[in-house]
């Protein structure tokens, strides 16, 4: 799927601006990344991949930052590194966040296939295969379940039945 490429330190105020935080996620998502790319929210398509440099998601604990990306249909995030709190939030929402030291080799519009389980990205445009750090096993299980809420739902149902 198509890559959208951003730089270092993309922050949560840019992903989910404070002035829209009182609104539902569908409204917040319309403004996702607008301060640095006004076309993004309208042009991104389900299955697209967001690629960035260092410290993606710096700043707030607001879960609406990864939730806005997920709402827009972004299938995975690939970055050289993630802000720790954002990383936990993304995984908790079932949105795979992959640490890839070679993320900078990806160009805007490249066609990518991301295999989160294997920790591998195929760049169909360039023919390259990029290695990612594997998502720890206990978190990968949560991603497979569809996030922490679904994971807890499974756990609550198991306990009560």
């Amino acid at each position: 799927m198509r890559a959208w490429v951003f730089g270092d330190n993309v922050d949560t105020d840019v992903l989910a601006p404070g002035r829209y935080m009182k609104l539902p996620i569908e409204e917040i998502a319309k403004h996702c990344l607008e301060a640095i790319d006004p076309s993004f929210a309208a042009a991104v398509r389900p299955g697209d991949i967001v690629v960035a440099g260092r410290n993606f998601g710096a700043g707030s604990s607001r879960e609406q930052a990864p939730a806005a990306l997920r709402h827009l249909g972004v299938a995975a995030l690939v970055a050289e590194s993630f802000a720790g709190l954002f990383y936990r939030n993304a995984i908790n929402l079932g949105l795979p966040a992959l640490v890839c030291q070679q993320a900078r080799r990806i160009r805007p519009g490249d066609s990518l296939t991301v295999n989160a389980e294997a920790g591998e990205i195929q760049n169909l445009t360039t023919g390259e295969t990029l290695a990612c750090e594997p998502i720890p096993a206990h978190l990968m299980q949560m991603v497979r379940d569809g996030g922490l809420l679904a994971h807890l739902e499974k756990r609550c149902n198991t306990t009560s039945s």
Partner: protein
Amino acid sequence: MSQTLAQKLVARAAGRSSVAPGEIVTCKVDLAMMHDSSGPRRVKPMLERLGAKVWDPGKVVVITDHYLPAYDDESRNIIRIAREWVREAGIDSFYDAQGICHIVLPERGHLRPGMFVVGGDSHSPTGGAFAAYMFGVGATEMLGVLVTGEIWLKVPHTIAMEFAGKLGAGVSAKDVMLFLIGRFGLDGGQYQAVEYRGDAIRELSMQERMTLCNMTAELGGQVGLIASDSVTREFLKTEIEIWESDADAPLLAHHRFNAGELPPQVAAPHSPANTKAVHEFRDVKPNLAYIGACTGAKLEDLRMASRILKGRKSKIRLLVAPASLRDQQSAEREGTLQVLLDAGAELLANSCGMCAGYGEHLLPEKAVAISTTARNFKGRMGAASAQVYLASPYTVAASAVAGRVCDPREMLA
């Protein structure tokens, strides 16, 4: 085996005698703090979906601070949900319109050295000033804590920031943090534990220590920690346990600085890491000064501003939003607040306000602001065209008086 303060705190919460950095452990949560934005309005529907109840209502604190004063139907609704939910869930520790959560929590005696605490806000590391392992989580992760009373953690390495000597007059904890963030970057903390130590740190008041730990968020650490000592004891007015790193505990990095050499710092738009010494910004002419936020408007912060503003007038619009109602009342009693008002300050509510860009007051297009807040990301405090410079309460006050960015030491007699 020697352990850092972070390891000791995590080990206790994990029910272990020791833990090693990099290990994944499950910790029991002593306290969970939420505010109106990331708290009840988000967790209530998820709890209902699960048909689950809060694991221990006595271990939950809810504080309203983001959507206050409520100014439209949406914000009124968010506050109403918080008020109703604490009753439904049986949560007694509810502080409504008393100030910003990170300040109200210790002010009302909820933090003690040795505790393991999660907060639904990224500035939760503030609690580390009390030698508590406190970090921020998102709403779904908070739900997990509310249901299970537990959270997973990768045991952090510790980065020690040691400051020898003593900070100079007119130089504060905010300058220390802007300097460190400028030096090491927004990811300098690598989501590890950052421990502040050294004589200059021991000298600091609890509220100044809170400023250090608070802005560990901007430094990219998971927690900012300071060992407990007599200053902690005096603030809490009770006997406390001493929690500190073993002297020979292995560190990921140990950075040493001389506090006396640090000049006031300013971070230019649009990043707290965009920091230089104050004299580099002499040509910048702000048209608004903001003294607000958990990191910049506690009683200590208001006192710093008043030392500069006493007998002087602000040349530009000066807004002051004291971080808690109690701090505002203390400032009023001792005359600090009157000094600010006499200088021309307009008083705003005890809430997050402009800092987070959530409220009614937002920076207009092309505004140039100098602010005691923690983040100057593009568009955070209002218009994307607004320029926000971050500085200490001393520097913000001095710049308000001068009408340009000014070294506060020039105004301290």
